[in-house]
Protein backbone atom coordinates (compact mmCIF):
# COMPACT_ATOMS: atom_id res chain seq x y z
CA UNK A 1 0.00 0.00 0.00
CA UNK A 2 2.80 2.37 0.93
CA UNK A 3 4.37 1.80 -2.45
CA UNK A 4 1.11 2.56 -4.24
CA UNK A 5 0.70 5.86 -2.39
CA UNK A 6 4.30 6.76 -3.16
CA UNK A 7 3.61 6.11 -6.81
CA UNK A 8 0.50 8.29 -6.65
CA UNK A 9 2.50 11.05 -4.98
CA UNK A 10 5.04 10.87 -7.78
CA UNK A 11 2.36 10.83 -10.49
CA UNK A 12 0.74 13.97 -9.09
CA UNK A 13 4.03 15.75 -8.58
CA UNK A 14 5.12 15.02 -12.15
CA UNK A 15 1.69 15.68 -13.63
CA UNK A 16 0.86 12.19 -14.90
CA UNK A 17 -2.94 12.38 -15.20
CA UNK A 18 -3.83 8.88 -16.40
CA UNK A 19 -2.30 5.94 -18.20
CA UNK A 20 -2.97 7.28 -21.69
CA UNK A 21 -1.53 10.73 -20.97
CA UNK A 22 1.75 11.18 -22.89
CA UNK A 23 3.13 13.57 -20.23
CA UNK A 24 5.64 13.44 -18.70
CA UNK A 25 7.46 11.27 -21.27
CA UNK A 26 9.43 9.32 -18.65
CA UNK A 27 6.16 7.86 -17.29
CA UNK A 28 4.84 6.76 -20.67
CA UNK A 29 2.42 3.79 -20.49
CA UNK A 30 2.53 3.76 -16.70
CA UNK A 31 -0.50 4.23 -14.47
CA UNK A 32 -1.42 7.84 -13.77
CA UNK A 33 -3.02 9.50 -10.77
CA UNK A 34 -6.48 8.39 -11.96
CA UNK A 35 -5.62 4.66 -11.97
CA UNK A 36 -3.41 4.77 -8.89
CA UNK A 37 -6.05 6.43 -6.70
CA UNK A 38 -8.66 3.97 -7.94
CA UNK A 39 -6.35 1.02 -7.14
CA UNK A 40 -5.58 2.38 -3.71
CA UNK A 41 -9.27 2.62 -2.81
CA UNK A 42 -9.95 -0.83 -4.22
CA UNK A 43 -7.19 -2.25 -2.08
CA UNK A 44 -8.82 -0.84 1.01
CA UNK A 45 -6.94 2.40 1.44
CA UNK A 46 -8.99 5.09 3.19
CA UNK A 47 -9.69 8.33 1.30
CA UNK A 48 -8.08 10.26 4.20
CA UNK A 49 -4.88 8.27 3.76
CA UNK A 50 -4.81 9.00 0.05
CA UNK A 51 -5.21 12.69 0.78
CA UNK A 52 -2.75 12.87 3.66
CA UNK A 53 -0.05 10.56 2.34
CA UNK A 54 -0.15 11.23 -1.39
CA UNK A 55 -2.14 14.18 -2.70
CA UNK A 56 -1.38 16.77 -0.03
CA UNK A 57 2.38 16.10 0.15
CA UNK A 58 2.57 15.96 -3.66
CA UNK A 59 0.91 19.34 -4.06
CA UNK A 60 3.00 20.75 -1.24
CA UNK A 61 6.16 19.71 -3.07
CA UNK A 62 4.79 21.30 -6.22
CA UNK A 63 3.96 24.53 -4.38
CA UNK A 64 7.36 24.74 -2.77
CA UNK A 65 9.18 24.04 -6.01
CA UNK A 66 7.09 26.73 -7.69
CA UNK A 67 7.97 29.20 -4.93
CA UNK A 68 11.66 28.40 -5.45
CA UNK A 69 11.19 28.83 -9.22
CA UNK A 70 12.28 25.30 -9.96
CA UNK A 71 9.06 24.73 -11.87
CA UNK A 72 6.72 27.07 -13.73
CA UNK A 73 3.00 27.64 -14.28
CA UNK A 74 2.49 24.94 -16.95
CA UNK A 75 4.06 22.29 -14.73
CA UNK A 76 1.92 23.37 -11.81
CA UNK A 77 -1.16 23.11 -14.02
CA UNK A 78 -0.13 19.59 -15.06
CA UNK A 79 0.13 18.55 -11.42
CA UNK A 80 -3.23 20.10 -10.63
CA UNK A 81 -4.75 18.18 -13.50
CA UNK A 82 -3.26 14.95 -12.20
CA UNK A 83 -4.57 15.75 -8.73
CA UNK A 84 -8.07 16.21 -10.20
CA UNK A 85 -7.71 12.80 -11.83
CA UNK A 86 -7.24 11.27 -8.39
CA UNK A 87 -9.93 13.45 -6.80
CA UNK A 88 -12.60 12.01 -9.10
CA UNK A 89 -12.51 8.89 -6.94
CA UNK A 90 -12.50 10.79 -3.64
CA UNK A 91 -15.36 13.18 -4.44
CA UNK A 92 -18.15 10.70 -3.53
CA UNK A 93 -16.65 10.36 -0.04
CA UNK A 94 -16.56 14.12 0.41
CA UNK A 95 -20.10 14.50 -0.86
CA UNK A 96 -21.53 11.83 1.43
CA UNK A 97 -19.70 13.37 4.38
CA UNK A 98 -17.77 10.14 4.99
CA UNK A 99 -14.51 12.01 4.51
CA UNK A 100 -14.10 15.47 6.02
CA UNK A 101 -11.99 18.14 4.44
CA UNK A 102 -9.96 20.68 6.37
CA UNK A 103 -12.42 23.45 5.70
CA UNK A 104 -13.92 25.57 2.97
CA UNK A 105 -12.10 28.21 0.96
CA UNK A 106 -14.02 30.74 -1.12
CA UNK A 107 -11.95 32.50 -3.77
CA UNK A 108 -12.54 35.07 -6.52
CA UNK A 109 -10.84 37.79 -8.54
CA UNK A 110 -12.24 41.16 -7.46
CA UNK A 111 -14.61 43.53 -9.28
CA UNK A 112 -13.36 44.89 -12.58
CA UNK A 113 -10.53 42.38 -12.86
CA UNK A 114 -10.65 39.51 -15.35
CA UNK A 115 -7.29 37.90 -14.56
CA UNK A 116 -7.78 34.33 -13.50
CA UNK A 117 -4.48 32.46 -13.70
CA UNK A 118 -3.21 33.40 -10.26
CA UNK A 119 -6.63 32.83 -8.72
CA UNK A 120 -6.91 29.42 -10.41
CA UNK A 121 -3.46 28.36 -9.23
CA UNK A 122 -4.30 29.25 -5.65
CA UNK A 123 -7.64 27.43 -5.90
CA UNK A 124 -5.94 24.29 -7.22
CA UNK A 125 -3.22 24.35 -4.60
CA UNK A 126 -5.68 24.89 -1.77
CA UNK A 127 -7.80 22.02 -3.04
CA UNK A 128 -4.62 19.97 -3.15
CA UNK A 129 -4.07 20.98 0.46
CA UNK A 130 -7.22 19.09 1.42
CA UNK A 131 -9.74 21.96 1.41
CA UNK A 132 -13.09 22.30 -0.27
CA UNK A 133 -12.78 25.18 -2.75
CA UNK A 134 -15.62 27.37 -3.98
CA UNK A 135 -14.36 29.34 -6.96
CA UNK A 136 -16.56 32.36 -7.66
CA UNK A 137 -14.66 33.24 -10.84
CA UNK A 138 -13.54 36.70 -11.98
CA UNK A 139 -15.02 40.19 -11.59
CA UNK A 140 -16.58 39.22 -8.24
CA UNK A 141 -18.09 41.94 -6.06
CA UNK A 142 -18.98 42.12 -2.37
CA UNK A 143 -22.52 40.79 -2.86
CA UNK A 144 -21.38 37.59 -4.48
CA UNK A 145 -18.73 36.98 -1.81
CA UNK A 146 -21.20 37.63 0.99
CA UNK A 147 -23.80 35.35 -0.55
CA UNK A 148 -21.23 32.55 -0.70
CA UNK A 149 -20.20 33.17 2.92
CA UNK A 150 -23.83 33.00 4.02
CA UNK A 151 -23.87 29.42 2.81
CA UNK A 152 -20.49 28.58 4.34
CA UNK A 153 -20.09 30.86 7.37
CA UNK A 154 -16.80 29.30 8.49
CA UNK A 155 -15.12 29.58 5.13
CA UNK A 156 -11.82 31.36 4.65
CA UNK A 157 -11.96 33.97 1.88
CA UNK A 158 -9.34 34.63 -0.79
CA UNK A 159 -9.29 37.81 -2.92
CA UNK A 160 -7.14 38.16 -6.02
CA UNK A 161 -6.32 41.32 -8.00
CA UNK A 162 -3.78 41.76 -10.76
CA UNK A 163 -4.06 45.46 -11.51
CA UNK A 164 -3.08 48.44 -9.44
CA UNK A 165 -6.44 49.90 -10.43
CA UNK A 166 -8.62 46.96 -9.40
CA UNK A 167 -6.66 46.41 -6.21
CA UNK A 168 -8.69 49.30 -4.75
CA UNK A 169 -11.79 47.16 -5.01
CA UNK A 170 -10.17 44.73 -2.60
CA UNK A 171 -10.44 47.36 0.07
CA UNK A 172 -14.17 47.80 -0.50
CA UNK A 173 -14.82 44.07 -0.51
CA UNK A 174 -12.76 43.42 2.64
CA UNK A 175 -14.66 46.27 4.33
CA UNK A 176 -18.05 44.91 3.31
CA UNK A 177 -17.26 41.34 4.33
CA UNK A 178 -15.82 42.37 7.69
CA UNK A 179 -18.81 44.62 8.37
CA UNK A 180 -21.06 41.60 8.11
CA UNK A 181 -18.73 38.84 9.24
CA UNK A 182 -16.24 40.45 11.61
CA UNK A 183 -14.62 37.13 12.49
CA UNK A 184 -14.01 36.05 8.93
CA UNK A 185 -10.48 35.44 7.73
CA UNK A 186 -9.53 37.05 4.43
CA UNK A 187 -6.36 36.45 2.53
CA UNK A 188 -5.25 38.61 -0.39
CA UNK A 189 -2.79 38.21 -3.23
CA UNK A 190 -1.86 39.20 -6.78
CA UNK A 191 1.00 40.99 -8.50
CA UNK A 192 0.54 44.54 -7.13
CA UNK A 193 -0.57 43.44 -3.64
CA UNK A 194 1.87 43.76 -0.74
CA UNK A 195 2.00 42.93 2.96
CA UNK A 196 1.71 46.63 3.66
CA UNK A 197 -1.43 46.96 1.55
CA UNK A 198 -2.94 43.88 3.20
CA UNK A 199 -2.59 45.49 6.62
CA UNK A 200 -3.85 48.84 5.36
CA UNK A 201 -7.13 47.44 4.06
CA UNK A 202 -7.73 45.24 7.09
CA UNK A 203 -7.24 41.86 5.44
CA UNK A 204 -5.78 39.04 7.53
CA UNK A 205 -3.03 37.61 5.42
CA UNK A 206 -0.97 38.36 2.34
CA UNK A 207 0.30 35.42 0.30
CA UNK A 208 3.06 36.17 -2.21
CA UNK A 209 2.54 32.82 -3.96
CA UNK A 210 0.07 29.89 -3.96
CA UNK A 211 2.02 27.87 -1.39
CA UNK A 212 1.93 30.88 0.93
CA UNK A 213 -1.85 30.68 0.85
CA UNK A 214 -1.80 26.94 1.55
CA UNK A 215 0.58 27.39 4.48
CA UNK A 216 -1.64 30.07 6.00
CA UNK A 217 -4.70 27.83 5.73
CA UNK A 218 -2.73 25.01 7.29
CA UNK A 219 -1.98 27.25 10.25
CA UNK A 220 -5.65 28.21 10.59
CA UNK A 221 -6.75 24.58 10.46
CA UNK A 222 -4.30 23.75 13.21
CA UNK A 223 -5.67 26.51 15.46
CA UNK A 224 -9.28 25.47 15.01
Amino acid at each position, binding site marked *: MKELLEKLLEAVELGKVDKKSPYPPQLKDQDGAYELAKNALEQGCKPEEILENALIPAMENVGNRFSR*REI*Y*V*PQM*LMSAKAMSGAMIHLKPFFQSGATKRKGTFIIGTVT*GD*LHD*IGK*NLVAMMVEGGGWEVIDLG*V*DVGSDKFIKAIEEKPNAVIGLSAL*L*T*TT*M*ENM*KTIVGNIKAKYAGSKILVGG*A*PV*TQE*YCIKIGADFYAPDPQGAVNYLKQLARLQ
Partner: protein
Amino acid sequence: MTILHSKTKEVIINTEGPVIIIGECINPTRRKKLVSTLQSGDFDYVLELAKNQIDALADILDVNVGFPGVDDVKLLRETVIQLQTHFDIPLCLDSPNPKAIEAALKVIEGKCLINSVNGEEKSMNTLLPIVKEYGAVVIGLTMDDDGITNDPFKRLAIAEKILNRAVKIGINEEDVIIDPLAMAVSADPQACLVTLETIRLVHEKLGLNITQGASNISFGLPDREMLNIAFMVLAIRNGLTCPIANPEKITAAVRAADLVLGRDDFAMRFIECSQNLKQPHFTHKQ
Protein backbone atom coordinates in the same frame (compact mmCIF):
# COMPACT_ATOMS: atom_id res chain seq x y z
CA MET B 1 -1.88 56.09 -40.79
CA THR B 2 -2.08 57.61 -37.34
CA ILE B 3 -0.30 60.84 -36.53
CA LEU B 4 0.61 61.89 -33.02
CA HIS B 5 2.60 64.89 -31.96
CA SER B 6 4.21 66.51 -28.98
CA LYS B 7 5.14 70.18 -28.82
CA THR B 8 7.25 70.06 -31.98
CA LYS B 9 7.75 66.40 -32.80
CA GLU B 10 5.53 64.31 -35.03
CA VAL B 11 5.27 60.53 -34.81
CA ILE B 12 3.64 58.67 -37.68
CA ILE B 13 2.31 55.18 -37.10
CA ASN B 14 1.88 53.52 -40.47
CA THR B 15 -0.15 50.33 -40.74
CA GLU B 16 2.63 48.85 -42.89
CA GLY B 17 5.37 49.80 -40.44
CA PRO B 18 8.08 50.55 -39.45
CA VAL B 19 7.23 49.71 -35.86
CA ILE B 20 6.72 52.51 -33.38
CA ILE B 21 7.62 51.77 -29.76
CA ILE B 22 5.44 52.92 -26.89
CA GLY B 23 7.54 52.79 -23.72
CA GLU B 24 5.71 51.00 -20.87
CA CYS B 25 7.94 51.79 -17.90
CA ILE B 26 6.04 54.69 -16.33
CA ASN B 27 3.75 52.30 -14.51
CA PRO B 28 3.59 51.62 -10.76
CA THR B 29 3.08 47.85 -11.03
CA ARG B 30 6.26 46.37 -9.54
CA ARG B 31 7.71 49.89 -9.29
CA LYS B 32 6.74 51.02 -5.84
CA LYS B 33 9.31 53.76 -5.96
CA LEU B 34 7.26 55.50 -8.65
CA VAL B 35 4.26 55.86 -6.35
CA SER B 36 6.21 56.95 -3.29
CA THR B 37 8.27 59.56 -5.17
CA LEU B 38 5.30 60.99 -7.05
CA GLN B 39 3.22 61.20 -3.90
CA SER B 40 5.87 63.26 -2.21
CA GLY B 41 5.98 65.58 -5.22
CA ASP B 42 9.35 64.26 -6.35
CA PHE B 43 9.44 63.87 -10.14
CA ASP B 44 13.11 62.88 -10.54
CA TYR B 45 12.39 59.16 -10.78
CA VAL B 46 9.62 59.48 -13.36
CA LEU B 47 11.87 61.76 -15.42
CA GLU B 48 14.66 59.19 -15.16
CA LEU B 49 12.28 56.45 -16.36
CA ALA B 50 11.33 58.70 -19.27
CA LYS B 51 14.92 59.50 -20.18
CA ASN B 52 16.05 55.88 -20.09
CA GLN B 53 13.25 54.90 -22.42
CA ILE B 54 13.89 57.78 -24.82
CA ASP B 55 17.57 56.83 -24.86
CA ALA B 56 16.47 53.30 -25.73
CA LEU B 57 14.57 54.79 -28.71
CA ALA B 58 11.01 54.87 -27.42
CA ASP B 59 8.82 56.90 -29.80
CA ILE B 60 5.94 57.48 -27.41
CA LEU B 61 5.74 57.19 -23.61
CA ASP B 62 2.86 55.49 -21.82
CA VAL B 63 2.02 57.30 -18.58
CA ASN B 64 0.25 55.33 -15.87
CA VAL B 65 0.27 56.58 -12.29
CA GLY B 66 -2.79 54.71 -11.01
CA PHE B 67 -2.39 53.16 -7.58
CA PRO B 68 -4.71 52.71 -4.61
CA GLY B 69 -4.78 55.83 -2.50
CA VAL B 70 -3.38 58.00 -5.28
CA ASP B 71 -5.42 60.92 -6.59
CA ASP B 72 -4.70 60.18 -10.22
CA VAL B 73 -6.88 63.04 -11.48
CA LYS B 74 -4.30 65.37 -10.02
CA LEU B 75 -1.24 63.20 -10.42
CA LEU B 76 -1.63 62.17 -14.06
CA ARG B 77 -2.00 65.82 -14.99
CA GLU B 78 1.01 66.89 -12.94
CA THR B 79 3.17 64.08 -14.32
CA VAL B 80 2.21 65.04 -17.87
CA ILE B 81 3.18 68.67 -17.20
CA GLN B 82 6.56 67.56 -15.83
CA LEU B 83 7.24 65.21 -18.74
CA GLN B 84 6.32 67.88 -21.29
CA THR B 85 8.58 70.41 -19.63
CA HIS B 86 11.58 68.12 -19.93
CA PHE B 87 10.95 66.07 -23.07
CA ASP B 88 9.51 66.55 -26.52
CA ILE B 89 7.82 63.20 -27.11
CA PRO B 90 4.15 62.24 -27.62
CA LEU B 91 2.45 60.67 -24.60
CA CYS B 92 -0.05 57.91 -24.07
CA LEU B 93 -2.41 58.63 -21.16
CA ASP B 94 -3.08 55.35 -19.40
CA SER B 95 -5.86 55.28 -16.82
CA PRO B 96 -9.22 53.57 -16.28
CA ASN B 97 -10.45 56.84 -14.80
CA PRO B 98 -12.00 59.11 -17.47
CA LYS B 99 -11.72 62.10 -15.11
CA ALA B 100 -7.96 61.61 -14.85
CA ILE B 101 -7.72 61.34 -18.64
CA GLU B 102 -9.75 64.50 -19.16
CA ALA B 103 -7.78 66.49 -16.60
CA ALA B 104 -4.54 65.48 -18.33
CA LEU B 105 -5.92 66.22 -21.79
CA LYS B 106 -6.47 69.81 -20.71
CA VAL B 107 -2.73 70.31 -20.35
CA ILE B 108 -1.51 68.13 -23.24
CA GLU B 109 0.56 69.84 -25.90
CA GLY B 110 -0.09 68.21 -29.26
CA LYS B 111 -2.03 65.07 -30.03
CA CYS B 112 -1.78 62.18 -27.61
CA LEU B 113 -2.90 58.61 -27.27
CA ILE B 114 -5.48 57.40 -24.76
CA ASN B 115 -5.18 53.95 -23.21
CA SER B 116 -7.91 52.73 -23.34
CA VAL B 117 -11.54 52.27 -24.24
CA ASN B 118 -13.08 48.80 -24.55
CA GLY B 119 -16.23 47.39 -26.11
CA GLU B 120 -18.32 47.76 -22.94
CA GLU B 121 -21.19 50.20 -23.42
CA LYS B 122 -20.22 52.19 -20.36
CA SER B 123 -16.61 52.51 -21.46
CA MET B 124 -17.47 53.65 -24.99
CA ASN B 125 -20.15 56.06 -23.82
CA THR B 126 -17.87 57.80 -21.34
CA LEU B 127 -14.55 57.88 -23.09
CA LEU B 128 -15.22 58.30 -26.81
CA PRO B 129 -16.83 61.75 -26.44
CA ILE B 130 -13.74 62.88 -24.51
CA VAL B 131 -11.47 61.52 -27.25
CA LYS B 132 -13.51 63.41 -29.82
CA GLU B 133 -13.62 66.66 -27.85
CA TYR B 134 -9.85 66.83 -27.36
CA GLY B 135 -8.89 65.42 -30.74
CA ALA B 136 -6.92 62.52 -29.33
CA VAL B 137 -6.17 59.02 -30.60
CA VAL B 138 -7.73 56.13 -28.70
CA ILE B 139 -6.73 52.53 -28.08
CA GLY B 140 -9.65 50.08 -28.27
CA LEU B 141 -9.35 46.89 -26.23
CA THR B 142 -11.10 43.87 -27.76
CA MET B 143 -13.20 42.89 -24.77
CA ASP B 144 -16.75 43.90 -23.91
CA ASP B 145 -19.68 43.34 -21.57
CA ASP B 146 -19.34 39.60 -22.17
CA GLY B 147 -15.73 39.61 -20.98
CA ILE B 148 -12.82 38.18 -22.96
CA THR B 149 -13.39 35.79 -25.83
CA ASN B 150 -10.88 33.31 -27.26
CA ASP B 151 -12.40 33.52 -30.72
CA PRO B 152 -10.36 35.82 -33.01
CA PHE B 153 -13.45 36.60 -35.11
CA LYS B 154 -15.34 37.73 -32.03
CA ARG B 155 -12.41 39.90 -31.02
CA LEU B 156 -12.45 41.36 -34.54
CA ALA B 157 -16.18 42.05 -34.15
CA ILE B 158 -15.52 43.96 -30.92
CA ALA B 159 -12.78 45.98 -32.65
CA GLU B 160 -15.25 46.79 -35.39
CA LYS B 161 -17.91 47.79 -32.88
CA ILE B 162 -15.52 50.22 -31.18
CA LEU B 163 -14.41 51.62 -34.54
CA ASN B 164 -17.98 52.15 -35.74
CA ARG B 165 -18.98 53.82 -32.52
CA ALA B 166 -15.97 56.12 -32.68
CA VAL B 167 -16.60 57.06 -36.30
CA LYS B 168 -20.26 57.69 -35.55
CA ILE B 169 -19.44 60.43 -33.08
CA GLY B 170 -16.93 62.02 -35.43
CA ILE B 171 -13.57 60.46 -34.54
CA ASN B 172 -11.44 59.74 -37.60
CA GLU B 173 -11.00 56.09 -38.43
CA GLU B 174 -7.20 56.35 -38.29
CA ASP B 175 -7.43 57.74 -34.77
CA VAL B 176 -8.53 54.36 -33.45
CA ILE B 177 -5.82 51.83 -32.63
CA ILE B 178 -6.76 48.29 -31.65
CA ASP B 179 -5.33 46.25 -28.78
CA PRO B 180 -6.17 42.60 -29.55
CA LEU B 181 -5.41 41.43 -25.95
CA ALA B 182 -2.67 39.01 -25.08
CA MET B 183 -3.11 36.31 -22.47
CA ALA B 184 -0.48 34.19 -20.75
CA VAL B 185 0.68 31.24 -22.82
CA SER B 186 1.64 29.38 -19.62
CA ALA B 187 -2.03 28.81 -18.81
CA ASP B 188 -3.23 28.18 -22.35
CA PRO B 189 -0.89 26.97 -25.11
CA GLN B 190 -3.24 28.48 -27.74
CA ALA B 191 -3.41 31.93 -26.12
CA CYS B 192 -0.80 33.60 -28.31
CA LEU B 193 -2.23 32.10 -31.48
CA VAL B 194 -5.58 33.69 -30.71
CA THR B 195 -3.88 37.07 -30.42
CA LEU B 196 -1.75 36.60 -33.54
CA GLU B 197 -4.83 35.64 -35.52
CA THR B 198 -6.78 38.62 -34.17
CA ILE B 199 -3.93 40.90 -35.23
CA ARG B 200 -3.96 39.46 -38.73
CA LEU B 201 -7.74 39.89 -39.01
CA VAL B 202 -7.81 43.45 -37.67
CA HIS B 203 -4.93 44.41 -39.97
CA GLU B 204 -6.56 42.87 -43.05
CA LYS B 205 -10.22 43.66 -42.49
CA LEU B 206 -10.08 47.00 -40.69
CA GLY B 207 -6.69 48.35 -41.78
CA LEU B 208 -6.11 49.93 -38.39
CA ASN B 209 -2.93 50.32 -36.41
CA ILE B 210 -2.45 47.72 -33.72
CA THR B 211 -0.86 47.99 -30.32
CA GLN B 212 -0.11 45.25 -27.83
CA GLY B 213 1.09 45.05 -24.31
CA ALA B 214 3.61 42.33 -24.98
CA SER B 215 4.89 41.46 -21.54
CA ASN B 216 1.73 39.61 -20.45
CA ILE B 217 2.17 36.53 -22.54
CA SER B 218 5.25 35.28 -20.72
CA PHE B 219 3.76 35.26 -17.21
CA GLY B 220 4.66 32.18 -15.21
CA LEU B 221 7.54 31.06 -17.42
CA PRO B 222 11.34 31.36 -17.41
CA ASP B 223 13.28 33.42 -19.99
CA ARG B 224 10.43 35.86 -20.31
CA GLU B 225 12.31 38.35 -22.43
CA MET B 226 13.05 35.72 -25.05
CA LEU B 227 9.40 34.72 -25.19
CA ASN B 228 8.24 38.33 -25.41
CA ILE B 229 10.58 38.89 -28.32
CA ALA B 230 9.49 35.75 -30.19
CA PHE B 231 5.86 36.76 -29.80
CA MET B 232 6.49 40.38 -30.70
CA VAL B 233 8.31 39.52 -33.91
CA LEU B 234 5.56 37.17 -35.06
CA ALA B 235 2.95 39.77 -34.14
CA ILE B 236 4.80 42.40 -36.16
CA ARG B 237 4.65 40.12 -39.17
CA ASN B 238 0.85 39.92 -38.72
CA GLY B 239 0.26 43.65 -38.38
CA LEU B 240 1.35 44.84 -34.93
CA THR B 241 2.59 48.40 -35.47
CA CYS B 242 2.97 50.05 -32.07
CA PRO B 243 3.70 47.67 -29.19
CA ILE B 244 3.67 48.88 -25.62
CA ALA B 245 6.83 47.40 -24.16
CA ASN B 246 10.08 48.14 -22.42
CA PRO B 247 12.28 49.73 -25.11
CA GLU B 248 15.40 48.83 -23.17
CA LYS B 249 14.56 45.19 -23.82
CA ILE B 250 12.91 45.13 -27.23
CA THR B 251 14.13 47.93 -29.48
CA ALA B 252 16.90 45.78 -30.93
CA ALA B 253 14.48 42.97 -31.82
CA VAL B 254 11.98 45.42 -33.28
CA ARG B 255 14.64 47.00 -35.51
CA ALA B 256 15.75 43.52 -36.58
CA ALA B 257 12.16 42.57 -37.45
CA ASP B 258 11.68 45.75 -39.50
CA LEU B 259 14.88 45.01 -41.42
CA VAL B 260 13.87 41.42 -42.10
CA LEU B 261 10.47 42.60 -43.34
CA GLY B 262 12.07 44.96 -45.87
CA ARG B 263 11.14 48.13 -44.04
CA ASP B 264 14.62 49.43 -43.39
CA ASP B 265 16.50 50.58 -46.50
CA PHE B 266 20.22 49.94 -46.32
CA ALA B 267 19.63 48.63 -42.80
CA MET B 268 20.14 52.17 -41.61
CA ARG B 269 17.89 52.05 -38.57
CA PHE B 270 19.14 48.63 -37.55
CA ILE B 271 22.79 49.66 -37.77
CA GLU B 272 22.16 52.95 -36.02
CA CYS B 273 20.40 51.13 -33.22
CA SER B 274 23.19 48.59 -32.93
CA GLN B 275 25.82 51.29 -32.72
CA ASN B 276 23.99 53.43 -30.21
CA LEU B 277 22.33 50.96 -27.90
CA LYS B 278 23.98 48.70 -25.44
CA GLN B 279 21.28 46.07 -25.39
CA PRO B 280 22.13 42.52 -24.42
CA HIS B 281 21.01 41.24 -27.79
CA PHE B 282 23.72 43.16 -29.58
CA THR B 283 27.23 41.86 -29.05
CA HIS B 284 29.03 44.59 -31.02
CA LYS B 285 31.20 42.03 -32.73
CA GLN B 286 31.79 41.98 -36.46
